[in-house]
């Protein structure tokens, strides 16, 4: 196992395994990453230092342990667990490279690792890296089977292969029928869990808002609404158990009636996968165009299955519209746990005794928030253990600092305690327009929570306590609205106290490129196919259209195949010069009357020349002998070839004795 030739055979396999696994190391758990790196290191040690290769028993036990470890550290059978398992098993397979067959199978398995990158990142950079690893892996596949071909010519061969394959790939990609919903359930992807979960408790939104990840992108087909109206409604929460707000079981009826608002807007949303069922729309969404999705009775947008890959939908919203309440929901919007937060309950009871209507109580609550000097911050600090049962009391009367969910949950609690029906809404506020592409980016840092109150006319009305305390939040992102020192970001640590202009520009440009990439490539769907094919006058909703497309695709594939065949011809300089000159010589001999039969070897041919044209023998003999040397001895140098060339071109069988050597 330690010989040099073996090392030159196994090292490329190790290289390709490392290159293919590298982008996954951030996706799998730290333990799996460390074990992986250790196994690679040990493999290197065994190659260079002769460390013993673990035997079959050790590998079997190790494999079982790694399997259990992969499942345990990735919350069950998630995509991450599968990838970790694949990665670890291939790292283990490196110790089994006894025969060529093991190596080839390991390299073929590497394609699996490469393609599983599709779950994690499909940005431009990631795609190009993946393409590079495909090329490299193919080069290794060639090199280990044909070691005479060094790795770099093998790489250029695999590049040539990919170049030839490219047109086929494009045609297949464009015409392959897309199915919006998969065959069966998809394993969960942990990474996609960034975003709103189905519960809100104190601190959840604040931690979410520290992520810079894109939540969704929006293109408006009508005039965009003003910035402070960009309330992206997502999840509506009804149940409060003293700690956490949950969705609760509400009637699954269609969207309720609503009071007309001021202006209708239409827009298209591209939602990044978040593994939840709800979609986001500007307050108040009234119409939804998306597959397998509908408007619930609380005007939240739901999808039948969790959004596990990028999802595109169109919404129509009515700015300022308000939905009417349904009677069974009113009781739900008043329910509170029987105990907890006594001071807040007392305060609410005082308000309800004084006030005459629901909206008066709401007004009192707003006044309360305005006068309490509560600080708006991303890092409100942990609730002490003694106050765990009364988190709202702690926030309102002790810490007095919190993020939007602190404001919203405590307002909803106060209102419910004062007999005003209220519900909590989670979503996003604002977003930034990308000047490059005329679309809006909404990031996780725009996460927000607010309250909807049932007013005296039994109509749900939005109340946002955060903008009461920090009015600038309505027009700025949370990060910009919060001005405290604890918010020293990595940029300010680098010396930029404000985000520099060029950075924003670069970020916008990069997002623009990725957005186009997403729009044209990564979100290519059945509707894109429909519109693409309608441009050439084919309607694929008809059977006839499908037949036409299949026919066109077949013709295109055939043409590409033919072109590929045409370009199979190798370069001119790679032609065999020796036989080229030899055939010139033979043609000249033929003209002189001595034809060579195809089965005749050079020596027989020379004998024939001697018999038939004795006069040419002296000239022909050195040519034939040099030909035999060049052809059959295996010793070959350029001088001989040049000599052979000049002899064959100067050979004149017609005239006698004019070339003497």
């Amino acid at each position, binding site marked *: 196992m330690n010989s040099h030739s073996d090392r030159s055979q196994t090292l490329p396999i190790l290289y390709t395994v490392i290159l293919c696994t590298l982008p996954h190391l951030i996706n799998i758990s730290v333990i799996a990453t460390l074990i992986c790196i250790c196994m690679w290191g040990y493999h290197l040690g065994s190659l260079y230092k002769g460390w013993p290769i673990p035997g079959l028993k050790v590998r079997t036990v190790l494999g079982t342990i790694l399997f259990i470890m992969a499942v345990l550290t990735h919350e069950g059978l998630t995509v991450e667990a599968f990838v970790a398992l694949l990665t670890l098993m291939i790292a283990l397979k490196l110790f089994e490279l006894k025969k060529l*067959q093991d190596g*080839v*199978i390991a390299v*073929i*398995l590497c*394609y*699996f690792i*490469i*393609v599983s990158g*599709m779950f994690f990142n*499909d940005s431009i950079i990631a*795609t190009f890296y*993946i*393409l590079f690893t*495909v090329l490299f892996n*193919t080069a290794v*596949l*060639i090199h280990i*089977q*044909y070691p005479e*071909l060094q790795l770099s010519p093998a790489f250029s*061969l695999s590049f040539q*292969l990919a170049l*030839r*394959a*490219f047109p*086929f*790939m494009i045609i*297949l*990609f464009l015409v*392959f029928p897309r*199915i919006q*919903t*998969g*065959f*069966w359930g*998809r394993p969960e992807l942990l990474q996609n869990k960034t975003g709103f979960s189905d519960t809100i408790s104190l601190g959840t939104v604040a931690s979410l808002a520290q992520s810079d990840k894109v939540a969704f992108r929006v293109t408006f087909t009508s005039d965009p609404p003003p910035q402070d109206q960009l309330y992206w409604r997502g999840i509506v929460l009804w149940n409060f158990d003293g700690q956490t707000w949950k969705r609760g079981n509400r009637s699954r009826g269609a969207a309720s009636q609503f009071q007309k608002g001021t202006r209708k807007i239409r827009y298209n949303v591209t939602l990044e996968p978040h593994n939840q069922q709800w979609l986001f729309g500007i307050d108040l969404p009234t119409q939804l165009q998306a597959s397998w999705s509908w408007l619930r009775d609380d005007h939240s947008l739901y999808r039948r299955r969790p959004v*596990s*890959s990028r999802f595109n939908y169109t919404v129509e919203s009515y700015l300022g519209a308000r939905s009417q309440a349904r009677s069974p929901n009113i009781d739900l919007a008043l329910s509170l746990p029987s105990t907890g937060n006594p001071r807040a309950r007392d305060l609410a009871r005082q308000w309800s005794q004084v006030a005459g209507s629901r909206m008066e109580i709401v007004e009192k609550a707003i006044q309360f928030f305005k006068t309490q000097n509560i600080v708006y911050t991303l890092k409100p600090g942990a609730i002490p253990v003694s106050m765990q049962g009364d988190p709202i009391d702690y926030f309102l009367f002790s810490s007095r600092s919190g993020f939007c969910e602190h404001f919203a949950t405590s307002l909803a609690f106060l209102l419910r305690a004062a007999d005003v029906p209220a519900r909590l809404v989670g979503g996003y506020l604002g977003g930034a327009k990308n000047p490059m592409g005329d679309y809006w980016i909404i990031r996780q840092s725009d996460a927000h929570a607010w309250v909807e109150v049932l007013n005296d006319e039994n109509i749900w009305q939005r109340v946002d306590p955060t903008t009461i305390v920090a009015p600038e939040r309505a027009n700025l992102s949370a990060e910009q609205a919060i001005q405290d020192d604890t918010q020293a970001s990595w940029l300010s640590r680098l010396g930029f106290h404000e985000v520099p202009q060029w950075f924003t520009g670069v970020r916008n440009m990069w997002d623009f490129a990725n957005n186009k990439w997403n729009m044209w*490539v*990564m*979100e*290519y*769907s059945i509707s894109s196919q429909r519109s693409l094919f309608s441009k050439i006058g084919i309607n694929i909703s008809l059977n006839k259209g499908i037949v036409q497309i299949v026919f066109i695709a077949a013709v295109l594939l055939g043409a590409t195949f033919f072109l*590929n*065949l045409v370009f*199979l*011809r*190798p370069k001119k300089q*790679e*032609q*065999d010069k*020796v*036989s080229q000159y030899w055939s010139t010589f033979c043609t000249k001999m033929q003209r002189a009357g001595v034809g060579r039969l195809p089965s005749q*070897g050079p020596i027989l041919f020379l004998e024939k020349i001697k018999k038939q044209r004795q006069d040419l023998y002296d000239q022909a003999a050195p040519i034939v002998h040099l030909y035999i040397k*060049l*052809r*059959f001895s*295996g010793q*070959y140098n350029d001088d001989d070839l040049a000599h052979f060339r000049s002899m064959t071109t100067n050979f004149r069988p017609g005239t006698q004795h004019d070339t003497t050597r």
Partner: protein
Amino acid sequence: MSTSVVSAIQQYFTSDRLHKFMPAIRIKTVTYRFHPTLYGVIFFGMLTALLIGSINHNNNLGYLLTFLLSSMFLVSIMLTYRNLRNITVSGGNGRPVFAGQTTRFNIHLQAREGKRYGVVAALDHHHRQQLNLTHNLAASTQLALPAKSRGILQVNRIFLSTSFPLGLFTWRTEAPVSLSCLVYPTPIAGPLHTETGTGSDEDQHQQERSKGKDFSGLLAYKPGDTPRQIHWKSLAGGKGLHSKFFEEQTSGSSLFSLQDIPGKDLEFKLSRLCQMILTADARGIPFGLRLGSQLLEPSQGAPHTSSCLKALSLYGQ
């Protein structure tokens, strides 16, 4: 257990059975066939799994990569074909061997254009040589072929195949050659029978031989020496196996004749004759050979031995 299954599957992929199912393609009077290798089947299985995964997740990056790999798979068929076409084969006749031995032919492969890697040349399916036509676009090798029966072993075609570059597909073709090799009969040991006029009685021969030859010494035992020749005394004395060596008293020579060999099977008789010739040649005894009407006058030396053996191998053919 699993390795034997794998090797059985692998054998299937290198055997002729699969090859028969695959379509033959004729390009410019040369017939080409192709079939996937075991790796090709594994790769295809992987592509299927990737396609199902991409459909299930409706993931366009997955589609893109699956189609890229499938297209590379497809294109590799063409590149593999390119690696095999326009190769001319020439070769030299093999040196004579005895039936049952393996003959070797010198084979020279010449590509018309482009370097070739991993071109497998074979005369049968058990002896193959992998060659790289990189140096001067040519390569030479020796190909083995078992010689089963006496006569002329004629080779009219050479099997060429290649899986380069990806090893997922194998293309095969046959190149016409015209190679031959003389196959002598298998030597079978037996007593020396020399022709003496008309007599053909075994005992008479035996007596004659004892009379006609003088014991002249011992030689190391050679395969083919009869038990009668073995000098048992020296073996018993712990001096190893030796044969008695009879110097011919007469200056005349022996004549081996086919009709003097007992037995009915022609091949067996020829084999016996073959061994006699070899023994005589080794001992430097001049000998002649009579095969039916054909007579080779008694003589000595390598060319004479060769022509006698050749006569044996061609007898009746």
